[in-house]
């Protein structure tokens, strides 16, 4: 199916500029030519038809990757056509309709298979030093019988017998009993995760108590374990009335209980909504911006997650105590805290490959409900929440504080975010491993990790220093409020006028590129030198590739103020290749020195 409408205007979000072009609807994309705008249907969160104006019929499209476009279609009938077809296209009947099942990057089956084998969680646990004398692999969940939202392979204390596990799982919400997710070899301390206990006001479960006892015993460094409930105390109390709740310190010997106070998915969803409203408003004063940013609470929530991860990290690396983390169901806040904590503790997770492993382990395999949270199938809007976006943002805030500690750059995070919502690769489809197996994703779709790995060059952080990681294996971030900044390049990634004039990252990469060229010039000169020594006559092709000379032409960088006066925001050409960057981040093909554009 292909719908084509001509004479459509695309309005710039922050200026009164517009572009004329033709709009096409294909089975998978909305395409606007003239400006090379490709929007995947899966990215569209909402379509809204505004009332007819003198210039035409406006159509506002809001995307999950924070792109906001407004088209003005000349004839109302056309607009209605687009609108109704979009509504149809946006509602996939089932998983089979998702782009991943039709996407074909021209790979043969073997290549695809290799792509899926890139990440191996068994090997990852081995890297951590598990199984060992205290922790073992259990086959209790081989057939997803004990817990259907957990992966097949689970690691538990050696002293935890099957009846104990099964008993404990019956006492935990959704059967998500305590299992190992990260093992800190140096102190033999473990990070475990689970869901809330079904304790109500007084219920107990001996198996659950002995499983926690076993976790505690597995670590000889300490006589107790921390139990971190990542919810605010009030929420946990409310859950008690529903027969759930939290561990009673009196019933469990050797635990220390701690609330952390991260809000639930509904609060987070509303907070992001408020944030987007604030930054989306066109005439924005400095006061509105700062006050709006604060009252949205978004950065406060980010800080809460980082705070929790820091607590976890300190307990494990400094005190050497094992920690059990849970929230309600143990797949949102728990995933955030466990993964961010591991990232702080282990330099491996701060590499490109390691970060993929981390996401695969703590998010995909332990059943973060990507399908529901990212609304892959147009499901219950109350289940949608930016939990994973929040995690990526936490990581970004850390990269800002520790520029040398991460192998990947911001572009890597942006690209992952893009594809979590694109449904172009199989990795994030569905809610849990069991569902993914039923969908035969490994056979029928491609892996994002293989794609990202193939263009690893584009995501490297030029500041990364492995030596730094060696010297600072554990990161200790500061949580002063000004260290939590608005992530402009995430929430304004499609608003060109908001892009920095010279991106530091780009500048550095340009410089690197230039220094590489300089090195090759040097080499060329050296070879010439040698040649000259040999025969004095051969003097051709020397320095042809030497740098172009600095011309004295006057150049302007940034939007001319003339534009900015008329329209408050100017257009920036060629400094940040955002539109194209989504498909293929044009990272390495950098224009010389960013500068020579307009005159």
């Amino acid at each position, binding site marked *: 199916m292909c719908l084509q409408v001509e004479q459509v205007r695309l309005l710039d979000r922050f200026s009164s500029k517009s572009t004329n072009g033709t709009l096409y609807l294909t089975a998978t994309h909305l395409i606007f030519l003239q400006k090379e705008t490709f929007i995947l249907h899966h990215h569209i969160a909402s379509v809204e038809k505004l009332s007819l104006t003198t210039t035409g019929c406006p159509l506002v499209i809001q995307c999950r990757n924070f792109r906001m476009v407004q088209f003005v279609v000349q004839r109302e009938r056309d607009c209605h056509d687009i609108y109704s077809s979009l509504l149809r296209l946006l509602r996939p009947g089932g998983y089979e309709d998702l782009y991943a099942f039709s996407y074909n990057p021209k790979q043969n089956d073997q290549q695809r298979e290799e792509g899926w084998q890139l990440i191996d969680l068994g090997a990852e646990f081995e890297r951590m030093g598990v199984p060992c004398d205290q922790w073992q692999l259990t086959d209790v969940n081989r057939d997803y019988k004990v817990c259907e939202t957990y992966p097949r392979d689970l690691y538990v204390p050696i002293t935890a017998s099957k009846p104990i596990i099964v008993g404990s799982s019956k006492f935990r919400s959704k059967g998500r009993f305590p299992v190992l997710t990260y093992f800190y070899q140096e102190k033999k301390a473990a990070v475990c995760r689970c869901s809330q206990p079904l304790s109500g006001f007084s219920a107990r479960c001996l198996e659950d108590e002995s499983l926690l006892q076993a976790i505690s015993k597995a670590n000889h460094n300490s006589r107790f374990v921390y139990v971190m409930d990542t919810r605010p105390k009030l929420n946990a109390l409310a859950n008690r009335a529903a027969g759930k709740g939290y561990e009673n310190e009196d019933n469990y010997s050797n635990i220390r209980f701690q609330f952390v106070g991260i809000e639930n998915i509904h609060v987070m969803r509303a907070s992001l909504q408020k944030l987007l409203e604030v930054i989306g408003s066109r005439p924005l004063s400095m006061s509105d*911006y700062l006050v709006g940013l604060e009252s949205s609470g978004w950065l406060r929530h980010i800080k809460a997650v980082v705070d929790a991860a820091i607590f976890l990290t300190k307990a494990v690396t400094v005190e050497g105590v094992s920690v059990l983390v849970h929230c309600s169901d143990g797949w949102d806040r728990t995933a955030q805290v466990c993964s961010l904590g591991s990232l702080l503790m282990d330099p491996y997770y701060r590499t490109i490959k390691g970060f993929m492993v981390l996401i695969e382990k703590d998010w995909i395999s332990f059943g973060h409900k990507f399908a529901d949270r990212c609304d892959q199938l147009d499901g219950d809007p109350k289940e949608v929440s930016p939990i994973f976006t929040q995690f990526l943002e936490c990581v970004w805030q850390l990269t800002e504080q520790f520029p040398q500690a991460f192998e990947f750059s911001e572009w890597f995070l942006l690209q992952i975010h893009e594809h979590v919502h694109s449904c172009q690769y199989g990795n994030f489809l569905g809610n849990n491993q069991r569902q993914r197996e039923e969908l035969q994703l490994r056979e029928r779709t491609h892996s994002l990790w293989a794609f990202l790995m193939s263009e690893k060059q584009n995501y490297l952080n030029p500041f990364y220093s492995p030596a730094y990681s060696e010297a600072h294996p554990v990161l200790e971030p500061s949580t002063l*409020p000004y260290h939590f900044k608005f992530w402009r390049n995430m929430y304004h990634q499609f608003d060109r006028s908001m892009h920095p004039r010279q991106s530091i990252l780009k500048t550095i990469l340009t410089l690197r590129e230039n220094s590489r060229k300089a090195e090759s010039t040097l080499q060329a000169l050296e070879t010439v030198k040698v040649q000259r020594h040999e025969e004095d006559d051969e003097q051709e092709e020397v320095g042809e590739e030497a740098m172009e000379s600095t011309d004295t032409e006057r150049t302007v960088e940034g939007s001319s103020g003339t534009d*900015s006066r008329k329209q408050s925001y100017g257009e920036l050409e060629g400094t940040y290749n955002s539109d194209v960057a989504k498909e293929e981040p044009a990272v390495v093909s950098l224009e010389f020195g960013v500068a020579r554009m307009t005159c």
Partner: protein
Amino acid sequence: MNSIGGLLRCLSAFLVNINVIIMLSFTSTSTSRSDRSAQAKPPSAMSSDSVSTSAEFSPELRVSTQDITYFCPFTGALRGTVIVTNYRLFFKCMDREPAFVLDLPLGVVSRVEKIGSASSRGDVSYGLVCKDMRNLRFAHKQLEDTLRKSIFEVLMKFAFPVSNGLQIFAFEYGQVFPENGWKVYDAVSEYKRQGIPNESWRITKVNDHYELCDTYPSTLAVPVNIPDEELKRVAAFRAKGRIPVLSWIHPESQATVTRCSQPMVGVNGKRSKEDEKYLQSIMDANAQSHKLFIFDARPSVNAAANKMKGGGYESEDAYQNAELVFLDIHNIHVMRESLRKLKDVVYPNIEDSHWLSNLESTHWLEHIKLILAGALRIADKVESGKTSVVVHCSDGWDRTAQLTSLSMLMLDSYYRTIRGFEVLLEKEWLSFGHRFQLRIGHGDKNHTDADRSPVFIQFIDCVWQLTRQFPAAFEFNEYFLVTILDHLYSCLFGTFLCNSEQQRLKEEIPKRTVSLWSYINSQLEEFTNPLYVNYSNHVLFPVVSLRHLELWVGYYIRWNPRMRPQEPVHQRYKELLAKRAELQKRVDELQREVTNRSASSSSERAGSPTRSITPVQTFV
């Protein structure tokens, strides 16, 4: 490599020398001992440790270790030794590992207040309110009353030398640097660099003895067709005689940035034929445009209110082809209040939950935004509109200096080099009479003086915002900007003393003090941005959107130990620079060799291709 070693040596010599100065004891009897005599000793004989152990120091002049408590707002109370000299306050606490050291040039002290009263038992304490965004509190047991008094008195005496009829420390400081910073700026050669004089602009010596305007420099650039006699009549119509003069001229379009003070229009709308003709000839000097833009930095309400005091703004009726624009930048009092609030918000502790709304309530970033936006409009008119502009506020030495210097920084890449920036400050700020003495209050104890204002700090903040947006466009780094601000207060160098060129000449500042640029230019590698790429004739138009403006944490919150950067970039910068220099050297050597060889053979061949190699740029 040799030269770097040399610079390092001279840097360490410089540090040692400062330590020698610390030796000066704080009792009034010993102050008569000259600093110079202490400096006469070979610096190498002193190690930095000698601060606390030197025998030169008679024991009774020091407060013993247990006596002084410094209440650090971040780490709690610390006990240690305090030494006060005529340059600094030095506190050292040996209990901590590493030893805690507080080293405060007395120039930054804005006020010393006694907190303890004589009647109370126990500790007596006093607080130091500083100009650089911090407050310090000391206390000690009330032992011999005389001792306490002496510290307090010595502080009062040396922190405010001007109020006590003493000399500012810069006059005592005799360090010799390999570079002479007083030679950095020469008005005539700077105008020459811009291509002045030319057919439309001339350099006049009418103000040679500061008779036309005592707050202006002696060298001025004015339109060719206005004779000196007429300048005097124009001066009569401009506040403080600050006539419109050239700041910068566009190398291609000849559009100019000119600066002045407000016209003395008054309530009755007075006019001046000469002034009107003068502005007309500024416009005529630029053939590209038939318009002249007058940027009044003030909010229009303020400008109108100035009419009551005889000032005002140009009416478009009187100035035919001029368009007047108000830039809505507030006055020095509003700015002072804004920074005071900012200090409250960031020092000593930051309230986590209301950080952004607290920051908003200071309006500091809003002021920064307005200044940058104004400068951007000026730069745009000149560059894109090819139109000449006249910039003024009330007296033309605060907001005007901010606007002209920022727009020049955007327009002319020369000012983005270290030397160029020094020239910019010397020209637009120092020579054109930004009243540093009054705005900062060097050595003056009158801390409530309404003339104090952070106008210059604001300018440096704006420059920092620009460097954030164009990381590769500036030759200097953040440390350079922080160093300038530190020595704005320190009174170690003569650069920021006095209010005008005339005063500086009278006080013989260049002869009797050391220039800050001597210090900076002698160790450029400390201040060089390794990312710098020199695009000549490159114009910068920053985004003044609020999403791009940030609080300069590295300056305003630097005292908070929790803010210390997790990774020191400074060292890495230097490594990068060294690597670049090394690569460049290799390239140069090879090139020289190649050219030599080709030169020997080119006699036989014409047009040897090797010529094209010369402009190799190296980046790291």
